[in-house]
């Protein structure tokens, strides 16, 4: 399966043209992780967006109390994105994300390259920002449903 095929089934790119998907696919690099590997660490600078291709990642939040263990917030599977908050607000990583499956693969998109593409193509920029908002809303609904 090509990167473009994977991106076609990702809500973030719903509404993008085939040409736009090709442009984004050209920026993607695939990375694979084993269970327990840290993909992003809470508090660190973030300059990549991730798309889960295979397996699951676990999102963990640490509280300000060092004696408390990080709390698992959600597992994200195929087609889900993470790292998008840093793309929107340029803040540090809001959570630690670990591979939760023996074979977890993700597509990595560098923030600066992706932003440059969206600056050049405002239709793509609109589609991505609308869909990021929808994805954050969905995650918030999920969190309300889990009571976490």
């Amino acid at each position, binding site marked *: 399966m090509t990167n473009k095929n994977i991106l*076609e*089934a*990702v*809500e973030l790119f*719903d*509404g993008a043209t085939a040409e736009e998907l090709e442009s984004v696919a050209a920026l993607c690099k695939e990375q694979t992780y084993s269970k327990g590997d840290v993909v992003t660490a809470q508090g660190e600078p973030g300059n990549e967006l991730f798309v*889960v291709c295979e397996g*699951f990642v*676990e*999102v963990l939040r640490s509280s300000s109390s060092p004696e408390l263990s990080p709390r*698992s*917030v*959600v*597992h*994200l*599977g*195929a*087609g*889900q994105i993470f790292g998008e908050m840093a793309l929107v607000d340029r803040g540090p990583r809001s959570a630690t994300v670990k591979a*939760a*499956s023996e074979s977890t693969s993700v597509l990595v998109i560098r923030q600066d390259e992706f932003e440059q593409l969206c600056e050049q193509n405002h239709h793509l920029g609109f589609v991505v920002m609308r869909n990021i908002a*929808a994805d954050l809303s*969905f*995650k918030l*609904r*999920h969190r309300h*449903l*889990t009571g*976490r």
Partner: protein
Amino acid sequence: MAAIYKVSYVVSGEEHPGAILNTDARPQKGDLVTLGSKKFTVVEVIDLIPSRGEFHYLHATLQKHSSK
């Protein structure tokens, strides 16, 4: 393009954060779902928000799978 189901899986009666993932088929009551190393049974599926394009947004409640 075929329908894509973005599903919010919430686990009932267990300390599990649930999961979000895309599936090709709409989950059905009684389906088995594996999250990590644990197996669960789907006990309820509802439309969470209206569909948009090929994307359908669902909420599924899971319970720990009993192998009896």
